[in-house]
């Protein structure tokens, strides 16, 4: 009885259960990163740099070398790794609090330097780990524990658009925003991650893939409602697409 692969869990993921809530998109994005590493044959050549937030345990799930840095500093840590090991695949996995708030400096300047690393940026418009506080990417009017009456311009300004900003940097080589709210988008996200990793392995410079993601628990929705929320409310603010594509 021959067994042919239809879909099989990648070797680049340890066989252990996630800590994520039901319907959390972190699981999908983790899996896609692992699949691309495996498909590119880079398991033994990859160093993943985690973050602080719901993605904090990424190094426990990925079956390749991993580092747990402090909050927001992953791009600096990845810079250090990459300058020592320029031929390896070095990527960070960061949420919107980690990347777009406390880690803004590190993110911007690794793009400015054209640091040859990849950032996988999971944007779910709030701080998941600490229980749903406002993030720089929180939508206008969105209720969080620190914007109990909804985000207002007077109090907290406007959502931060990471891709649009980083695409203006000469050092960035591949910048894309994707989502995972349906199968087609999941495939596009995987393709974008692959392009980002390929950009890095070709030495073209800084790459970032922003994945619009659901946080059903903190949004107060069931997983299916959360899919619609991404589609209906996040897409108008955070349009999908490739914002930068450097070739050679």
């Amino acid at each position, binding site marked *: 009885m021959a067994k042919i692969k239809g879909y099989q869990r990648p070797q680049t993921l340890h066989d252990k259960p996630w800590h994520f809530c039901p319907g959390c998109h972190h699981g999908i994005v983790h899996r896609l990163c692992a699949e691309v590493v495996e498909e590119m044959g880079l398991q033994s050549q*990859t*160093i993943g740099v985690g973050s602080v937030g719901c993605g904090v345990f990424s190094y426990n799930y990925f079956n390749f070398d*991993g580092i*747990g840095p402090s909050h927001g*500093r992953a791009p600096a840590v*990845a810079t*250090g*790794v990459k300058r020592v*090991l320029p031929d390896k695949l070095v990527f960070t996995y960061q949420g919107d609090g980690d990347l777009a708030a406390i880690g803004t400096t590190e993110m911007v300047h690794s793009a400015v330097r054209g640091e040859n690393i990849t950032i996988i940026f999971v944007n779910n418009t709030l701080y998941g780990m600490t229980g749903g506080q406002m993030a720089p990417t929180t939508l206008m009017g969105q209720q969080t524990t620190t914007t109990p009456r909804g985000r207002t311009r007077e109090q907290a300004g406007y959502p931060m658009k990471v891709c649009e900003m980083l695409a203006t940097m000469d050092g960035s080589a591949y910048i894309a925003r994707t989502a995972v709210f349906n199968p087609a988008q999941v495939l596009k996200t995987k393709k974008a991650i692959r392009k980002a990793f390929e950009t890095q392995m070709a030495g073209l410079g800084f790459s970032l893939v922003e994945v619009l993601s659901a946080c059903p628990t903190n949004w107060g929705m069931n997983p299916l409602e959360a899919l619609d929320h991404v589609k209906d409310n996040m897409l108008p603010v955070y349009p999908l697409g490739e914002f930068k594509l450097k070739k050679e």
Partner: protein
Amino acid sequence: MSEVILMKGNEAIGEAAIRANCRHFFGYPITPQTEVLEYLARRLPEEGGAYVQAESEISAINMVFGASCAGARVMTASSSPGISLMQEGISYIASAQLPAVIINIMRGAPGLGGIHPSQADYFQSVKGGGHGDYKLIVLAPSSVQELIDHTMLAFELSEKYRTPVMVFGDGMLGQMMEPVVFPDYLPPPVDRPWATTGMEGRGPNIVHTLYLPAPDLENHCHRLFDKYRDIEAREKRSQEYFTDDAEILVVSYGIASRVARAGVEMAREAGIKAGLFRPITLWPFPDLQLQAAAKQARLLISAEISMGQMIEDVRLGIRDKVPVKLFNRIGLVPNPDEIFEFIKAEAGEVSKIG
């Protein structure tokens, strides 16, 4: 390579790092340390190394964290306000048990302070600085030659114990020029089986500092402190001048210890039985050596360019058996006359007590 060459302290640190086979440096400009960066920006590319001017000291120390994870011999340098920004990273480096060398060319503080020499980061570096239960080996050179020797020693100790080591200088040491000789010495290379270099031929390596279950954290801290006890047992270093019969023992480190030595020599010429005890490691503090050096002492003087920080370790070290007084100046390196006058006045007091 035993040729004499005239070097500024900050340049000497940079060249020492290169001679020690350090090929990765991450830093941020700040007076009076900037020449370390400038020197390495010029020299590291010549040696095939990587130099990155980070966007902040916070980023610099985290680049050091990453480079050390990747198995490199790595260094950063800054001065007091910049070292404050690095404290978070230092705590992580200590917890993750990564080797790294951090140079602090101290300047006047608190706040923005001034650009003049200072020793006011003693508490910060010796007593913690970053969050949590950890220790930092702190070496206190007192000459440009020792900046070289201690930078090399710092690499050796940090790799031997997998712990961050700070070389504790001040603006004057960083800026002054002295003739130096680079020793024929190379910190021995150590295996780094824990490094995250890609899992070729092995399982995944993970470097992290998160221990959520309370017993895990407790065990982790005990492991760290077992190591620190080992360091305390082996690595206390100090130097002594005229301590055999010293009734007044000046305790001083770094640039201040050189002034103190001159002051002690003046006191000796004036017939006062003064001596100098110079801690070379500030942590671990050489308390046993201090006790031995102070066996004839009736008074200890802690001479520092701070408002009285090391004096606490001097008191602890001598177990409060001998009174300890403070001699200090802020914003400048004192003149030996000043220390001499202080010793002379105290000697008068001591003799009155009989």
